[in-house]
């Protein structure tokens, strides 16, 4: 039996923009968020920013998580934020994970990425941050 729900589950989109074909990390995070009671829409590999934003709106998610290893983050992440703004959906928080140099991370945060996790981040940390971001968004 599913435990009685006091509030509706957080819906989160996990997507991997960029061309690299590794989604192990994204899948591990997706499972951790599921185990924390979230409904994780897993959009898969090689998503364009347009596809990611479209999926986020259709699925009416509370939160978007992006994962990237290919180094194209400085092009792709800001594009997602721009598209969200254009759709009037900039209230949906976006967090990111991957191999992102400190300098880039600072710039991305200034642009509006709410949290960035490097390879050293624990799943606990990611889950807790995701919960906070989703609950305080609306």
């Amino acid at each position, binding site marked *: *039996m599913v435990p009685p729900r006091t509030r509706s*589950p957080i819906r989160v989109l996990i997507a991997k923009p960029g061309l690299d074909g590794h989604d192990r990390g994204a899948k591990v995070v997706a499972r951790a*968020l599921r185990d*924390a009671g979230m*409904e994780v829409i897993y959009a898969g590999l090689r998503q364009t920013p347009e596809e990611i934003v479209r999926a986020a709106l*259709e699925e009416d998610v509370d939160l978007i998580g992006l994962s990237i290893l290919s180094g194209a983050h400085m092009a792709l992440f800001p594009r997602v934020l721009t598209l969200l703004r254009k759709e009037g959906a900039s209230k949906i928080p976006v967090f990111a994970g991957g191999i992102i140099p400190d300098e880039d991370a600072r710039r991305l945060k200034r642009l509006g990425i709410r949290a960035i996790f490097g390879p050293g981040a624990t799943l606990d940390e990611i889950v807790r941050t995701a919960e906070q971001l989703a609950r305080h968004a609306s």
Partner: protein
Amino acid sequence: MSRPVRLPPTAQAIVRGDRRALARAITAVEDGDASADLLLRSLYARSGNAAVVGLAGPLGVGKSSLVNALVGLLRARQKPVGVVAVDPSSPFSGGSVLGDRIRLERRADDPDVFFRSMASRGAVGGIASTTTDVVRLLEAAGFPTVLVETVGSGQVDVAIREVATTRVVVTAPHLGDEVQTLKAGLFEIADVFCVNKSDLPGADVAERDLAELASLGASRDGWRPTVVRTSATTPSGIEELWSAIEAHEAFRAASGDRAGAERRRLAAEIVDRVRDRLAGEVARALEDDPALARLLDQVVDRALDPRTAADRVLEQRLRAR
């Protein structure tokens, strides 16, 4: 014969084709929000005309890939299509990984495809308890075809019967024992059998087995299930699959199956809703209403039996209305 009702603003937005409004309304329906209730009441008259195609079958046979192929075919013919894809919720955390979207390939700016993932949220039978209402919202939003992918547990996805007008049971070569479990449940509800992954060896055997089963099985309401072969990834056989679905839809329209099956489904829905509401009211009243609390005390003390107590509760409830 719909009464000329003024639709509430959100309902108007959905009917107008506002996809954000639709997406938010689906969330409200899933979460059982009060706002969803009014919406569903006002939009019901706009449902009931779409072809609702259910795709059920064991894990990994290619349901999502077939959904993607059918979306491609319908869009090539300029037909709008809505999709609801259901995945299981974890019985432990209540969470879920909804992965059917991975197979979807469509233009990101195509407004005539709407894809929504749903978690089963504890319901058994392959769909969520709110899937029927979500399909109604998609119909009200103007989608003439709605594809519903079930959880993928094989034998228990039979709730698809409640929501779909045409039920496609998907199999693949070399399922082995899976076919046995299919026979036990899903087999009886199939309007179309689809042997997917026909690019793999063994498809001939699988098709022959199914055709044999289909011919043995008594035809339901005058319809004998058809068998088609597809390869969702090649793709091939998709036009044949769609033709088989259309043939069943045409049969339904011509045969009055609608009047029969639809009527039974809706009767069951009304019974469910009355039961749920009455049960909720009574459960609350047994705690809050002093007279009923005393009644319960008597049952606990063996001064009254539960059946007689139920009679009294029902009498009291009916008077209270």
